[in-house]
């Protein structure tokens, strides 16, 4: 995809709230592919870390090294809780979950067997990150 096309597809913040999602192709959802996408996302201003995991492997890149466990526990809890909530309220498969705190926000996504959690500053544009992961 050319740079121009990427720019054309840059989503606005309201895309997430309006439920506009992008379908991802299977080859882009492999662990390695997601890993390289997230490594790029990690360098963006406002992104403080990410966790990528599947059943056998996990990558954690968190700014505050001493708090990695707390980030990981929250990430895991959000994924588990959202699965239960989605089931209870017949939401279908949870495509993305956004948890906004006073200081940071957490974007979680389930792509195949891979679970992604991106931690970012509250004013960071999470909708862009969703598209960056999926395109």
């Amino acid at each position, binding site marked *: 995809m050319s740079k121009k096309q990427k720019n054309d597809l840059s989503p606005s913040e309201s895309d*997430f709230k309006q439920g506009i999602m992008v379908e991802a192709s299977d080859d882009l959802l492999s662990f390695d592919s997601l890993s390289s996408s997230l490594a790029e996302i990690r360098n963006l201003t406002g992104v403080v870390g990410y966790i990528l995991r599947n059943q056998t492997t996990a990558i954690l890149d968190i700014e505050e090294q001493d708090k990695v466990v707390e980030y990981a526990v929250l990430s895991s809890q959000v994924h588990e809780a959202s699965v239960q909530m*989605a089931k209870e*309220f017949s939401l279908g498969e949870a495509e993305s*979950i*956004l*948890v906004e705190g006073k200081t940071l926000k957490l974007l979680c996504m389930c792509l195949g067997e891979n679970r992604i959690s991106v931690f970012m500053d509250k004013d960071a544009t999470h909708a862009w990150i969703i598209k960056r992961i999926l395109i």
Partner: protein
Amino acid sequence: MTEAPNNTLQTVIAEFNHINPEASSAFIFNRFGETIAQNEATTKEQTQSLIANFDSVTAQAQIIGGVEEFTIQGSQGQLNITAINNYFLATVSSRAADQKRLQSFTHVLVPLYIKLLDSTQKPLEPQEEKETAKPQAEEQLENPTQIIEAPPAKLTLEPEVPSEQFPAYPPIKQFMVEKIGGLLAPSDTVRLDAETISKWSTLYKGKPITQVSIETLEGKKITCKLKSVKEEKANQGIIQVPEKILQALQTGKGKLVMVKPVVK
């Protein structure tokens, strides 16, 4: 289902499906996990399950500063939980739901009701009353730049006035900002027309209205001193605000603000 404001909140929540036909569930619970109000489409099992799961998230969320908003975008629907003071509003709707309408319900209407109910409850709670009594008058006015974040409010409410009591909640009126300056204009005092002040005073059984709370549509809020405008035929829709308060509110001439009287 326990507290006094339940009836009001229950009515608001019951209207959820009328406002948002694409929505299904809506309910409010407090930080103790008690359901305060819910619409007909929501079952007790659903509320309990959601509260339990949400609680498990909030218990781990100190690292991001607690949970103010929680959103799940599912393939068939979306769930949103919004923190409002000590309450949480949960809504479930289809992906086709009108997001603007949904947002106006979750971020304007319900927060406004909860804020109003909370403000009327405060006198009944001694501990909170103690806390709110401290920063009044001079302390607040010496430092008018103390801003309190609040959800945007766009409604003008004129309360029903019980015959022998103060209004259940303070009247809120919208004004257009006009800047005042000069040596004789105190930097901590705004001016309104005498008729509005007189009406408010009547509502409060003749109590003098010396302070007002001003809130911008962006949610910036401040409490400051109030005086009536000097001109005899003052425009009723205008509030005269000094530069210092304008800066604190991050607003300016011609902008709209919500104003309500503060009665001690």
